[in-house]
Structures are given as structure tokens and as C-alpha cells.
């Protein structure tokens, strides 16, 4: 067996009040895809930031290529051949795509940019990632989340690094784009590079991984496991320290025969989606399946009034909502947990409980003054139900791990007493353990009489969770029926069939 390319031993990193890493060991070899697994808050992102030179470890040592290494700053790590794709998107919106890719190691002569040079090199990288349509001169801020993720990847590749670290790169990509990403990873592996890959999606790790290391509470609990053969149950047990059911919570009681609570009729927005009609009864969960960019997020945002419908109506409990008015939607009892949580709603420097109770402040105020204790305890309860870790309502949201930040937003919408709940990608970035708890919670809410609409790119998740499913492709509903009567293959077939017939926009979601 070749000597390891990178070896981390006994890494410790403390933040005020938390020991985020408590003796982590990691061994990465050249020519392998090494997966890092662990629950939200296990310390994965912290570990890779230590590796990237963004954080200094308090203890432990890093050996690279047989030599002791110390990365005083990110530049040192880059120079040593470690390039990182961070979990949070970190591009400069005001710069062009090419400028972002080469930021910090510009192609220049005497300080003057060689624009055509770097545009050409950027285009080559984007083509190799399967995205020739992203223009190098385009302003980065105008790209969608998926587009930005591609640019981040191009940036890491442009460094010609020995080790490429990817922190949940697939979170905002659709299955097609994940396929492209995996082809690139395979090329890198074949050329002898090492890839450290973080994802909460076990099926990805099965497909691309060679070996894996499991972190729990800042410690390595298992290392050198074969990524393909290790049974799922064992992995989950290692990560969570308990048994987690992989089953979706199916309906246990028959659906009450009530009038629909939410009726969407002929809804359309020019160039986005057309003629969308569906209805949801109290207690029912309706899923919207489809690829990223099919228009699902646009549909739920329009139902919620965040986008103004050009055609069609949204009716809640018999009353038609005013178009393009979030206020009207909220007054009628609608709630939307948006897809892009980071930008759409967290006050990063506020405490967890504040963030959770934000949307329901009127509930906690009497004569204009907020009742702090009631607010806190209700928020605390909500954060417990989605399993925000650490379980401390006073913590500043910024110091939570990525997945736990997402849970905070979800908790906020669960705390509001909505009658119709629209959930856009409710489990993105959330670990397996917490995911099944979120499923159970959604089902419980439905059983209590809520009408729920769930959007997810994970087709199994939509099918498993919902009672009825709508398949959306290119902004049109191409199928609608009970979830039990269709499987993931069928869903994909229908999407592909519609793509072939129209061959239109396969773009990403805004």
C-alpha cells in the first residue's frame, strides 16, 4: 500500500464553549476518493477548514507527502497543494466568473490581467465540468446557486492541487449535474489526485467513494472502512450511536374526506411555468418531484405570493388570494420554508430562539412588548423537535454547523401555526438521523390537519413522504397521481420523455 499522501493525527480545535474537534485522525491516499461522514455538527467542516489553513488546530499534527506541515493561512495550504470547496458558497458576486475562478492566483503579467487568457482557461475548466454554457465573462452574482457551485468547483480545479476537498458539493446540484461532478472526480482520481468528499447522501458515497472515515462529536469513530461494502445500518449506527429507521412514515389513518384546503388553478408565470393545477386536503401531503430548474420552487413561491402570478388563482379554504401578496397568503394561513435558507431568512448574529420565533413574533407580544420567556420556551421546543445541536437556544446561529442552521429555519416554520405548509427541500444538508425525525414531524403535522406541499430533488424522498405526487418538468405538470402507484424510475422516465418532446430549458433554479 502506498504511503499516505496526507495524514492528520489527534487534531483538536476548540471554540469558546465547544470542542468542535476532539482528537481526529484522518489518512488520505493518492488516487482515492475519501469520504467523510458524520451528523450535523460532528466537525466535518471544521476539520476541512483546519486542513485548508482557515483555522489553526489547537493540538495535533498534519503530515503531507511525508513531511510535517503547518498551514498558517489558506495560502499556505493552497501552496502545499490542498484546494477546498467550502460548504457555504463564497464567491464574489461583483466579479466575473473567470475573475472568481482565478482570484488570488490571477493570470497576469506585471499586475495586469490577461483577460482573454483567463477567459480561455476558465472556459476550458467549465467545459471539463460539463458546463460550457456558463460564460466566463458573466457576472457571478447573476448565477443561480447551482451555477455558483460549478464555479466554486472550477476554482478549486484551477489550483492544480494534489488534494481536493469538497464539502457537500452536491447539495445544490440536480442528479444530472451530480453525474457531471462524479465524472470529474473520477478523472481526478485516475490522475492520482486525492479527493476528500463530504456528503449526507449515502447513495453518493456508495457510487463514488473508495474509503471512508466516520466522525462523531469531534472524534474519529471509524476509519479505513470500504465505502461500497460497509452496510448502511452499520454506518448509521456509527454516526448516530443509535438505530434509525430508514422507513418513511407512511399514513396510518385514512385521509379524512374533507373539502380541499388549498386549491391552485391554472397558475402560470411567463417563461417559468404554465397551467399548474392541484389541490391539497387537510391532512394530505402533496409532493412536487422534478429536477432542479424544473420550476418547482417557482411554483411554491408563486403560491405563497413571493412571485406574482400572471395567470390562475390560489384559493385557501374557499377564499381566493390576491396575486403577488405574501401578506394575503400569510393571513390565510400559508407558510413557506424556502429553498435558499442562508440568504432568505437567518439573522446570523442572533440567538437560535430569536431566529425561530421571528416569524411568529405577534404571538409572543402583548401590548407591543415581546414576552421573552414564552418566546424562548416555544422556540426551544421547536428546535428540539428538529434536533438542532447543540441544544442551546441562546447560541448565536453563525456558530452552528451548516446542517443545524437549516434546521433552525425549518423549526421557525413549524412553530408558526400555519394551515398550509409549503416546504422547499426540507432536508437539504440535513443528516440521516435528523432527516427521519423531520419526516416523522411532517407526517405528524399532516395528521393534525395541515395541508402540506413538499418539494424535493430527492425523488425517493418525495415519493416516500407524500400521499400524492406531481411530476414537474420544464414548468409543466407531466404527471399527477398517488405516490404509491409510481416509483423513482417511472418519475424519471416521465421527465425524460417530456424533455425529449420539448427539449427546452434545462436550467437551474433561481
Amino acid at each position, binding site marked *: 500500500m502506498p504511503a499516505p499522501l496526507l495524514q492528520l493525527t489527534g487534531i483538536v480545535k476548540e471554540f469558546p464553549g465547544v470542542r468542535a474537534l476532539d482528537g481526529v485522525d484522518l489518512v488520505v491516499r493518492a488516487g482515492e476518493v475519501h469520504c467523510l461522514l458524520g451528523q450535523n455538527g460532528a466537525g466535518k467542516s471544521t476539520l476541512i477548514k483546519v486542513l*485548508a489553513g*482557515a483555522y489553526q488546530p489547537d493540538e495535533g499534527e498534519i503530515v503531507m507527502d511525508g513531511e510535517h506541515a503547518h498551514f498558517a*493561512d*489558506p*495560502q499556505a495550504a*493552497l501552496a502545499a497543494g490542498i484546494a*477546498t470547496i*467550502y460548504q457555504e458558497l*463564497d*464567491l*464574489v*458576486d*461583483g*466579479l466575473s466568473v473567470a*475573475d472568481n475562478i482565478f*482570484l*488570488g*492566483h*490571477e493570470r*497576469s503579467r506585471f*499586475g*495586469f*490581467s490577461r*483577460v482573454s487568457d483567463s477567459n480561455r482557461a476558465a*472556459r476550458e475548466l467549465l*467545459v471539463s465540468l460539463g*458546463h*460550457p*454554457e*456558463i*460564460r466566463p465573462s*458573466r*457576472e457571478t452574482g*447573476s*448565477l*443561480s446557486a447551482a*451555477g455558483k457551485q460549478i464555479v466554486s468547483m472550477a*476554482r478549486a480545479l484551477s489550483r492544480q492541487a494534489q488534494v481536493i476537498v469538497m464539502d457537500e458539493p452536491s447539495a445544490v446540484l440536480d442528479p444530472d449535474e451530480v453525474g457531471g461532478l462524479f465524472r470529474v472526480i473520477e478523472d481526478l482520481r485516475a490522475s492520482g489526485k486525492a479527493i476528500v468528499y463530504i456528503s449526507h447522501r449515502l447513495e453518493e458515497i456508495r457510487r463514488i467513494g473508495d474509503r471512508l472515515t466516520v466522525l462523531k462529536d469531534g472524534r474519529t469513530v471509524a476509519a479505513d472502512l470500504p465505502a461500497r461494502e460497509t452496510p448502511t445500518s452499520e454506518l448509521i449506527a456509527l454516526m448516530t450511536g443509535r438505530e434509525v429507521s430508514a422507513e418513511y412514515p407512511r399514513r396510518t389513518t385514512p385521509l379524512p374526506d374533507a373539502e380541499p384546503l388549498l386549491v391552485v388553478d391554472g397558475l402560470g408565470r411567463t417563461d417559468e411555468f404554465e397551467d399548474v393545477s392541484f389541490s391539497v386536503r387537510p391532512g394530505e401531503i402533496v409532493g412536487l418531484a422534478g429536477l432542479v430548474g424544473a420550476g418547482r420552487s417557482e411554483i411554491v413561491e408563486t403560491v405563497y405570493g413571493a412571485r406574482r402570478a400572471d395567470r390562475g388563482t390560489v384559493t385557501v379554504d374557499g377564499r381566493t388570494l390576491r396575486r403577488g401578496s405574501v401578506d394575503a397568503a400569510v393571513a390565510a394561513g400559508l407558510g413557506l420554508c424556502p429553498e435558499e435558507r442562508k440568504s432568505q431568512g437567518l439573522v446570523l448574529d442572533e440567538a437560535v430562539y430569536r431566529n425561530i420565533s421571528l416569524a411568529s413574533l405577534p404571538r409572543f407580544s402583548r401590548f407591543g412588548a415581546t414576552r421573552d420567556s414564552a418566546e424562548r420556551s416555544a422556540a426551544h421546543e421547536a428546535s428540539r423537535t428538529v434536533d438542532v445541536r447543540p441544544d442551546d437556544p441562546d447560541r448565536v446561529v453563525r456558530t452552528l454547523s451548516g446542517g443545524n442552521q437549516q434546521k433552525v429555519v425549518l423549526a421557525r416554520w413549524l412553530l408558526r401555526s400555519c394551515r398550509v405548509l409549503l416546504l422547499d427541500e426540507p432536508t437539504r444538508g440535513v443528516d440521516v438521523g435528523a432527516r427521519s425525525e423531520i419526516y416523522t414531524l411532517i407526517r405528524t403535522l399532516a395528521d393534525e390537519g395541515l395541508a402540506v406541499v413538499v418539494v424535493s430533488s430527492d425523488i425517493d424522498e418525495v415519493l416516500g413522504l407524500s400521499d400524492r405526487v406531481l411530476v414537474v418538468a420544464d414548468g409543466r405538470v407531466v404527471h399527477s397521481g398517488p405516490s404509491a402507484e409510481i416509483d423513482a424510475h417511472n418519475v424519471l422516465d416521465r421527465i425524460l420523455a417530456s424533455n425529449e418532446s420539448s*427539449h*427546452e*430549458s*434545462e*436550467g*437551474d433554479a*433561481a
Partner: protein
Amino acid sequence: MATATAPPDERVATTGPVARLLKRPEIGALIAALVVFLFFALTTETFATPAGASTWLQTSSTIGIMAVAVALLMIGGEFDLSAGVMTGFTGLTVGVLTTHWGLNIWVAIVVALALALAVGALNGFMVMKTGLPSFIVTLGTFFVLQGIDLALVKLIIGQVAIQGMSNVPYYDQPKKLFGSTFEVGGATIHVSVIWWIAVTIIASWILMRTRAGNWIFAVGGAQGASRQVGVPVFRTKIGLFMTTAFAGWIVGMLVLFRTSTVQSNTGIGQEFIYIICAVVGGCLLTGGYGSAVGAALGALIYGMVNQGIPYSGWDSNWLKAVLGVMLLGACLINNWVRKRAENAR
């Protein structure tokens, strides 16, 4: 490009030249400048004459040099409230050193430059090392310099204005560089206009075509991320503060050699005008967005309004009210344009 074969996709949505032009940060300022020009040209006698133009161009030029430097700094995510008083500080330094202590005028000019750059570097250093907002740090330097300009100068020369500047040996040499005029089509143009145009061109060039320009956008738009990819954040920011100080030195010299005097209160109160010009020119207060040409246009608007109001026979005190309205208008328009750009995605 491969776009010919790719399926239509919002990421490749072709942007025509018009759409692209409308997205430029300075477009609003350009239109406003045309409107302001036409308004005063049509409603007053003198505004569009060569003599009229040379006055408002001159006012625009000194403000413009500073506004361009301040715009770079704002794109880099910082403010410099000491920029205005710096123009007085450098002029006074040269004045005191030459008239009072008889130093060679060129040496005095270089000393003033060195002092200005040192203050700029100190501003940057304090901002980066303490993590305090630059608004506070430079507010501090602003007051310190203001005190020096008034108290120290008075202590040394016994008065608050430099006199006898034109009697200093070799005064004519730097006067050619900073205080001369020339004729263009019947208009007497002050050399500061050349400086203004040169500074704008160089700043635009740096922003659009050099590595340092990328760094400026990067440190203003996403400081943490820039550090992670190896942008020299510290150096870039220090450089930006030194740039505003440098601009302050240029303007200090231009004022000194045009009027051959300088007063202790020169430049005080101008710092917000520079910021207003930069914002009117499309800079965002949050950093990471803006343009040098826009700031120059903002200064042009300021200069035209500044001179146009008295030409119209109005009380010149209305200027401030107009400025306030312009600032709010510019912010609202910029905001609206950006929202639309985001929705169009």
C-alpha cells in the same frame, strides 16, 4: 463558443449590448449628468458658455479626484472620513514648511506626500488590526487632523491661513504642474481637469484590468472568502486607504497652487460630498460594487449643480438640499435597478 449548440438556458440568456449597458453601475449617473446639463444650459445664459463651463469643470475636478479615490475605497468595503481634511493638511504642510521655515518647495511637496501616505497607511493599519469599522477609525483621524490644521498651524505661524506663498523661491515650477491653465475653444481650463481625467482613467484601468482591481472587488464583496483563496486582504485595504490619502495630496496641491493660499479649515465638510458623489455614481455602501467613472460623473453633477444654482439666480444655499435629494434618488434608483436585475434571473 459552444453556446450555439447548447439548449436554451437561463445561464446563457443572451444579453444584448443595451441590456448590458443598463447594468453598468454608472449608467444612472450618466443620464442624470445629461439631464442636469441640459436643464441649466436651457434655463440660464452663462451655463453653457466657455466661461461658465470652465468654472463648473474646475469645481467638478477637485471633488472628482477625491470621489474617484473614495469610490475605490468604498468598493473595497471601507470609508474614509479623513479624506476631506487631508486636502487642507497637505496644503498647509507645504505652506508652513516653505513660508515659515524656508524649506525648498519641492522638498516640502514630497514631505507632504510622505506624511499623507503615512496617515493613510495608519488608517488602514488601525482598521485592519483593531477590527473597528473604518467609519469610526477615520472619524478619529479626521478630528485629529482637523485639530492639527487649526491649532498646530496657529501655534507655529500665528495665524490660520498661509500667506506669501507666491514669494517662495521656485514657486513657478510646481505652479505649472498644479496651478496652470490653458485655453480650449475659448474656455480657460484649469490643469486640475487634466488631473481629474487622468485619475479617473487610471482608477478605471486598475479596477477593470488589473489583478489589484479584482482584489478590491473581492475584499469589499466577500472578505472572508477572499482571504480563503489567498487574496492579500491586508495589503489591498492598506493600499486603498493610502490611495485616498494620495488623492488628498493631489487636491491639496491643486488648491494651494491655484489660489496660492490655503486656510486651516480647507476640506472640512467635504468628506461626505465625496461619498455622495461615489454613491450617485453607483457605489454601494456595503462594498463590492461600483465604478470609478460613475464617481467622476457624480462629481460632474455636483460641480454643475454647484455652479448652476447661482447662475439661475437662486440662493446658493439650496445646493445642500439638492444634494440630499440627489443622494436619496440615486440610492432608490440603484436599489430598484438591482432588484430588477435579481428578479430577471
